[in-house]
C-alpha cells in the first residue's frame, strides 16, 4: 500500500493519533454502554430485553452491569431477581 492510499483511507495521518483515538473511543463506549443500560433499567426494562437489543446474552449484560446498577438503586425492581448475591 502506498503512502497516499493510506492517508486517504485511514483517517489521522499520525498512527499514534489513530491508535489513541481507538483507546479514547473504547473508554467512551464503555461509559456509554453503562449509561444506556442504566437508563434502560431505570425505564423498567428487564435484563433480558436490554440484552436482546444489545445483541448479547442476558448473562453477559447481567455480569457486566447488574452489580453496579443494583448498588446504585437498592431495592428497585424486585421482580428482577438475579444471580448476584
Amino acid at each position: 500500500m502506498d503512502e497516499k492510499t493510506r492517508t486517504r483511507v485511514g483517517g489521522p495521518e499520525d498512527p499514534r493519533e489513530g491508535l489513541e483515538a481507538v483507546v479514547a473511543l473504547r473508554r467512551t463506549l464503555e461509559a456509554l454502554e453503562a449509561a444506556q443500560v442504566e437508563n434502560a433499567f431505570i425505564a423498567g426494562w428487564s435484563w433480558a430485553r436490554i440484552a436482546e437489543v444489545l445483541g448479547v446474552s442476558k448473562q453477559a449484560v447481567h455480569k457486566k452491569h447488574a452489580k453496579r446498577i443494583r448498588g446504585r438503586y437498592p431495592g428497585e425492581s424486585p421482580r428482577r431477581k438475579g444471580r448476584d448475591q
Partner: protein
Amino acid sequence: MIFTRFTDRSRKSVEAALGEARMLGHDSLGDEDLVLGILRADEGLAAEALTSLGVTLEGAREESEEMLADSLSSIGISLEEVRREAGDAFEMRIPEHRRIPLSPRAKKALVEARKEMRRLGDNYLGTEHVLLGILGNEDGTAVRMLVRLGVVPETLEERLFELRGRAAG
C-alpha cells in the same frame, strides 16, 4: 515484586494513581495517572517539584480529560454530544468491581524508577525516582500531558534534583 523498596509516599502515590485512573475511566493505569497519583497523594519531592512549576491536580485531571476529548474529535466524535445524549447516567468512572491493570508504560516507568534509584545510589524508591522514571519516556502520555500544561521536562528534572539537594543538605 514491583513495589520492593518503595517508600510509603511512593506507594501511596501509586495507590492514588489507581483512584485517578478509575475516576477518569482509564481502563488501564497509564503513566499520566502516575503523575496524577503523585499530585493527589501530595507528599514527597515529586509532588513538590510539580507544584512548584504550577502543576495542580485539578489542572492535570482536566488536561487528561481534554486529551481524551481531542482524540475523539480527531475521528469526528464530540464527547460533549455523547455526554448530552446519554444523560446524567453517563460517567467515565470505572465500576469498583473492575480491576485496572498497570499499562505497559506505567510498568516501564516503575522499572525505570528502580534503575534511577540504583543510578543515584539510593536504597529507597521515592516519588522522585518514580517521576524520573516517568520522564524517561518522552513518548509517553505523561510527558505529553505535562508539556501541554506548560512544563518543560528538563526543567522539571532540574527542579527535582534541586529539591533533592536541598533535602539532603
